């Protein structure tokens, strides 16, 4: 179990996300006195107001000038006895790649809905991105409840439509909350205006979310090789356990190697089940990109992958254009072709045009065989990039490899 919860805040433009995040930081006591002074000064300078909470995380010149979050900002705080690392994600559709950067790696996503206008296409996109990114739960905050007079009927209708769409998109929404970021209603403490609401505050929801184990229990060893020198391999155990004396398969290279020594950053040991390790081997000599695997239950090796991706590039995928696929430490020349596109409103897949921020099905034909394990998050996550410019075209998750 990790000791830091990683939480991403997502919301459409003007849903009040930066204000909610600023409110969260202030209520959690995460700002020190000089940072509060800076905030007051920036508020006077940029907004002609006493305190504009959104300026806390909008830290870049362009952001403060335009009142828009352009890229992810990361902030530390403590809620209850839980340490939290917040990612403040931009809301604009053209900045989806940056938002995905923030949510991919988070365990919990907080998605905002503006109570006065209801969910938008961006709301559904943020829910779908949260699932694709692999968060284990989503907290939906219906913000600006003050603008609808704290009306429980408005909230109930929004909660129902949120759960309905989340269900068609298979998004793990754990709770929908009414809040008002402007006045700290139901964020750090229950609010009298929302006395009809019997659910948790945002802080309750964030401090009670269990930090999940990312690694399936009982899964056989997968140790992707990040760096190798001679018979020494460096990497992080993705699942299973590596132990001195084991004989391991080296894939896709082939051959097997015996484990002579195991060490972590703390000490030499007989076995290791997680984290960064160094392994001395005798036998087949691995290189970066290989995986060390349990011999009786190795991962699939294949040249054909299919998965679900968020497409970032302004030009759609072209089946003849060479791409580079990164899967763990593997760097694989490939071609990418597009299957169906996700209709966010209806949760249905259909054939259609691919735009930046579309969620799409991609088929990847690799020039050489690669290993993949779709049961382990870290071993199915993929970047697709342009080999000449390095531009990241898409990121996503492999659903299926074919033999």
């Amino acid at each position: 179990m990790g000791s830091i919860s990683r939480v991403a805040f997502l919301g459409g433009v003007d849903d009040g996300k930066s204000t909610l995040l600023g409110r969260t930081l202030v209520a959690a006591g995460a700002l020190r006195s000089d940072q509060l002074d800076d905030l007051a000064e920036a508020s006077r300078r940029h907004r002609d107001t006493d305190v504009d909470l959104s300026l806390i995380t909008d830290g870049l010149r362009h952001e403060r000038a335009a009142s828009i979050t352009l890229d992810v900002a990361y902030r530390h705080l403590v809620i209850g006895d839980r340490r939290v690392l917040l990612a403040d994600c931009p809301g604009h559709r053209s900045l989806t790649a940056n938002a995905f950067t923030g949510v991919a790696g988070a365990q919990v996503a907080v998605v905002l809905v503006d109570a006065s206008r209801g969910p938008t296409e961006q709301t559904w996109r943020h829910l779908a991105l949260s699932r694709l990114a692999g968060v284990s739960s989503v907290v939906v905050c219906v913000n600006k409840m003050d603008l609808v007079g704290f009306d429980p009927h408005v909230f109930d209708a929004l909660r129902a439509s949120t759960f309905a769409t989340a269900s068609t998109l298979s998004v793990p929404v754990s709770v929908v909350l009414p809040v008002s970021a402007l006045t700290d209603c139901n964020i750090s403490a229950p609010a009298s205006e929302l006395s009809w609401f019997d659910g948790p505050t945002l802080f309750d929801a964030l401090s009670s979310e269990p930090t999940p184990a990312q690694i399936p229990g009982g899964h056989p060893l997968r140790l992707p090789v990040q760096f190798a020198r001679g018979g020494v391999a460096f990497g992080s155990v993705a699942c299973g356990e590596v132990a001195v004396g084991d004989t391991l398969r080296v894939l896709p290279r082939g051959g097997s190697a015996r484990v002579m020594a195991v060490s972590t950053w703390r000490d030499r040991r007989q076995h290791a089940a997680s984290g960064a390790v160094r392994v001395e081997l005798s036998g087949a000599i691995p290189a970066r990109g290989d995986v060390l695997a349990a011999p009786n239950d190795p991962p699939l090796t294949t040249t054909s992958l299919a998965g679900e991706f968020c497409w970032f590039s302004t030009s759609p995928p072209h089946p003849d254009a060479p791409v580079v696929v990164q899967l763990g430490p593997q760097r694989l020349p490939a071609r990418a072709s597009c299957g169906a596109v996700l209709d966010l409103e209806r949760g249905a897949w259909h054939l259609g045009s691919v735009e930046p921020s579309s969620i799409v099905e991609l088929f990847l034909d690799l020039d050489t065989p690669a290993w993949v394990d779709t049961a382990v998050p870290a071993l199915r996550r993929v970047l697709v990039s342009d080999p000449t410019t390095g531009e990241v075209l898409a990121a996503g998750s492999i659903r299926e490899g074919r033999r």
Partner: protein
Amino acid sequence: VFLPSRTANSQDVPAPPCTVAVVAPVPVVRQWLTPPELVDEAIWVIREAVALATKTVLLFSGGKDSAVLLHLAHLAFAPDPAPLELLHVDTSHNFDETISFRDDAAARYALPLTVASVQDSIDAGRVEDHGGSRNALQSTTLLDAVAHHRYDVILGGARRDEDRARAKERIFSHRGPSGAWDPDRQRPEPWNLTSGDLEPGGQLRVFPLSNWTEADVWRFTVDTGLEHSSLYFAHRRVVVERDGLLVPVSALVPAAPGEAAVERTVRFRTVGDATCTAAVASTASNPLEVLAETIAADVSERGATRIDDRSGDAAMEDRKTGGYF
């Protein structure tokens, strides 16, 4: 823990005791332990950086963040030597303690150290010295050294909690040939995965401590018994009080007319250009006491100690877009 042994001829920096009796009532809670995932993440990032590089360099100033980074780089490969070199961009505005610590550490870890001098850049006419802090001038010296030694991956100890512009930067920050950070064109970095392909002639700045806080640096120090420069622990020093900051008096920074130079018990929270680094009043004399003080501090690290970052709310962003690390 694999700790490098001190070499016999290393300059003897008085090292703080690392195992100490706790004086204040200290509850045994999680906030005193280094989150193991931060260490694993940093080691993963360092190994990834080295694997992507043709030639890796670690920016080592002798400050606490770079000392932690250097130790993590050591742990990432130990007992093999870390496959990288060290570079210090030297402003010549130094505290003597930093320089002796720097040389001692390079010797202990047995890694080659290059010192690139801002003074040389000034003498060669590459940059103009307008007096005062040389932080912004470091960029040119850094870029010249990177080009000369053909480094393509540059590890730095920056943390996102230091500054609002740092909070926005990727762990793997792709920079063009000019080294400039373009905040409007950062590459996506989901799950900490980066596209390893550099722009032609481009370079990669890598920040393994991105998700660490100032307190995490001290937690790790307590955990591992890591040594830091004596500047970080309470000592007697002559200072003047200026704009609420305790400014150390030296040949570079004399007391202004009318200012009273007084000896106080102080330590430094950050150590940078000696003309713009302020001290804080403190009696914390070992890492555990410093950690306790850091957790309780009412003022941020930069607010307490950096004179130059008070010159505008985008001072760091402006330096980074000019190629700063």
